[in-house]
């Protein structure tokens, strides 16, 4: 028997196999005790009980008896047929139905007790070795009792019987109306039994969210908050918040975004199993980048899932073809699944269940939710934020690399992203925007954050063409960023300037070379002149010497001395 022993109290639990419930109850229902499931009409009480018994019988070979007070066994089986539990087969081995409806012709005369029925069921359980029993819609029978005291007595009787029979027992009872409050007449059931589960509902903006609450669980800790649940394609499923955030493997492998230059900006691509948030106004190419991401995944041979909202997969495939992204072939081969979900008029929980089912069925390695903000439309944003958180957790647990796109209002992108509180969950946040100048809207891409990776902090221009996606450098001029035609012009202008500058240098060189040449020529001439002058000077010096020797005897001493005092006057006199 799949049971778990709660450490302190020694409570033994019997797994229900219901999605989410065993998690929030710490292992299932109290083994050998009575649990009561209360809820309004159509809240899924019967499904809760029946699916638990079917799971136990099929998966663990634990036989059970299903006692139906309201519907015939045939009708119950017909209703449950779509869930694929294979009840017809189980009915022959391990799941026994008792039709406990009173015949229509039955007349009531006075009070009664359940003793006889319990004795008979006990005998049946003994013979088939049953471990489980469910009393479905016991309120139908209890309503015939004259007063609350009588009803309470029968529930006591049932509990006493159950203690002796040692069956794990589920009793379901309908509350008076479809509200989340129990009809006062049945509150005693919650007090008397060991475990009480309430199936309620909350309506916000005409969107109904079904909520499961464990009202009490004797001797065991359990989830205290109401948890959304659904009656889905496979039956009952509750979606408790994951108990902790860190239970997944931390990966180091890099995954390409499919855009080479973006990978470079991210310091070598995304890290596998991380979450990337793409924010931006409508038309900023969130879907294009997402499409490229899944295309790249498929090209690597990985399975991928693209979840879009309020748009068909075919439209997305067609639109992406215009930028050279071909998803069609991968979709046909089954490597890519495009899931178009309706988000309007549905609760966020129902949408979440669909997303999770798609992930579980397709086992993708790359997932896109486009846009995540579709979840925020329904109910309140708080709930949508929880769901965003859970999707992230589910993907991280599976090592799935996730892209979330979020539509942001032009006025306040930061407020927009924080409203779903996704920005804190995202490992990488890429913001896309428009820059409008000179009559053009150009797309800009910037990495707001990227955990655990060196990344560029520069804005790039995102250019979409039939050839695909490219990133271009942007020019900044006087504090403004230039893109598109302005960038092209700026690029052209720069080239012109370079050419002009080169010519300018050449001209300058020519001019300088000319000047140098002229100077050199002049220096040459002057050098010649200098030589000539020196020669003249030498001649002059010799002449002066000859003159002084000849006149030495002719002149008196005084004359010589005076000449000696003024030699220049003689020279300059030439």
């Amino acid at each position: 028997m799949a049971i778990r022993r709660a450490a302190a109290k020694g409570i033994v639990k019997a797994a229900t196999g219901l999605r989410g419930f065993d998690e929030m109850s710490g292992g299932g229902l109290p083994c050998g005790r009575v649990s009561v499931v209360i809820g309004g009409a159509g809240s899924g009480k019967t499904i809760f009980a029946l699916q638990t018994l079917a799971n136990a019988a099929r998966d663990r070979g634990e036989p059970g008896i299903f006692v139906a007070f309201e519907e015939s066994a045939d009708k119950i089986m017909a209703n449950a047929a779509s869930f694929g539990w294979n009840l017809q087969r189980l009915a022959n081995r391990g799941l026994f139905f008792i039709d406990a409806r009173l015949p229509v012709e039955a007349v009531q005369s006075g009070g009664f007790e359940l003793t006889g029925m319990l004795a008979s069921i006990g005998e049946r359980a003994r013979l088939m070795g049953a471990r489980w029993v469910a009393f479905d819609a016991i309120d139908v029978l209890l309503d015939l009792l004259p007063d609350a005291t009588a009803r309470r007595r029968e529930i006591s009787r049932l509990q006493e019987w159950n203690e002796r029979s040692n069956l794990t027992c589920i009793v379901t009872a309908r509350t008076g109306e479809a509200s989340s409050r129990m009809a006062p007449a049945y509150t005693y059931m919650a007090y008397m039994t060991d475990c009480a589960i309430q199936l309620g509902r909350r309506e916000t903006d005409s969107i109904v969210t079904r909520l499961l609450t464990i009202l009490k669980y004797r001797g065991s800790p359990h989830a205290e908050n109401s948890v959304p649940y659904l009656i889905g394609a496979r039956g009952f499923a509750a979606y408790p918040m994951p108990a902790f955030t860190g239970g997944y493997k931390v990966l180091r492998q890099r995954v390409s975004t499919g855009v080479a230059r973006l990978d470079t900006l991210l310091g070598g691509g995304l890290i596998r199993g991380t979450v990337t948030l793409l924010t931006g106004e409508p038309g900023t190419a969130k879907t294009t980048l997402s499409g490229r991401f899944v295309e790249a995944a498929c090209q690597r041979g990985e399975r991928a899932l693209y979840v879009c909202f309020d748009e068909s997969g075919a439209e997305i495939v067609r639109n992406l073809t215009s930028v050279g992204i071909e998803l069609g072939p991968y979709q046909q081969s089954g490597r890519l699944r495009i899931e178009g979900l309706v988000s309007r008029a549905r609760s966020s929980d129902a949408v979440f269940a669909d997303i999770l089912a798609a992930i579980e069925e397709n086992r993708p390695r790359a997932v896109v939710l486009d846009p995540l903000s579709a979840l925020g439309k329904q109910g309140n944003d708080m709930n949508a934020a929880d769901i965003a958180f859970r999707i992230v957790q589910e993907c991280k647990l599976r090592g799935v690399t996730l892209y979330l796109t979020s539509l942001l209002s032009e006025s306040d992108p930061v407020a927009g992203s924080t409203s779903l509180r996704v920005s804190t969950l995202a490992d990488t946040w890429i913001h896309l925007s428009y820059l409008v100048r000179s009559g053009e809207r150009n797309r800009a891409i910037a990495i707001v954050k990227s955990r655990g990776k060196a990344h560029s902090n520069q804005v790039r221009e995102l250019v979409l063409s039939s050839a695909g996606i490219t990133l271009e450098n942007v020019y900044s001029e006087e504090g403004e960023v230039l893109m598109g035609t302005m960038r092209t012009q700026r690029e052209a202008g720069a080239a012109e300037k370079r050419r002009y500058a080169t010519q300018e240098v050449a001209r300058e060189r020519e001019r300088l070379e000319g000047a140098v040449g002229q100077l050199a020529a002049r220096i040459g001439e002057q050098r010649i002149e200098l030589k000539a002058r020196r020669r003249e000077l030498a001649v002059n010096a010799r002449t002066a010497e000859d003159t002084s020797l000849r006149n030495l005897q002719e002149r008196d001493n005084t004359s010589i001395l005076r000449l000696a005092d003024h030699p220049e006057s003689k020279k300059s006199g030439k």
Partner: protein
Amino acid sequence: MSIRDPRPRYRLRLYIAGSGPYANRAKQNLVDAAAEAGFDYELEVVDLIAEPQRALGDRVVVTPTLIKLSPLPRAMVIGDLSDRDKILAALAAGRGAGQ
């Protein structure tokens, strides 16, 4: 009462569980009703504590349960039979002379 005229002999089966107050009251109430209404009957008492497997055949859910096996149609009365008019009405149901 109308059932006096044909004076049928009822074949009845009473399901009880052990010998608690409900079982005793039901038995006594049946005896009293028959005496007052003056009908004849043949009664089988089934104690489900002793024979639990017998409940399923007659689809007995609660105890006490009284079943009229014949004359047809079958009738079922649940409870301790404290409401005499109800018993008599149920026994007479389907008969031309009844209401």
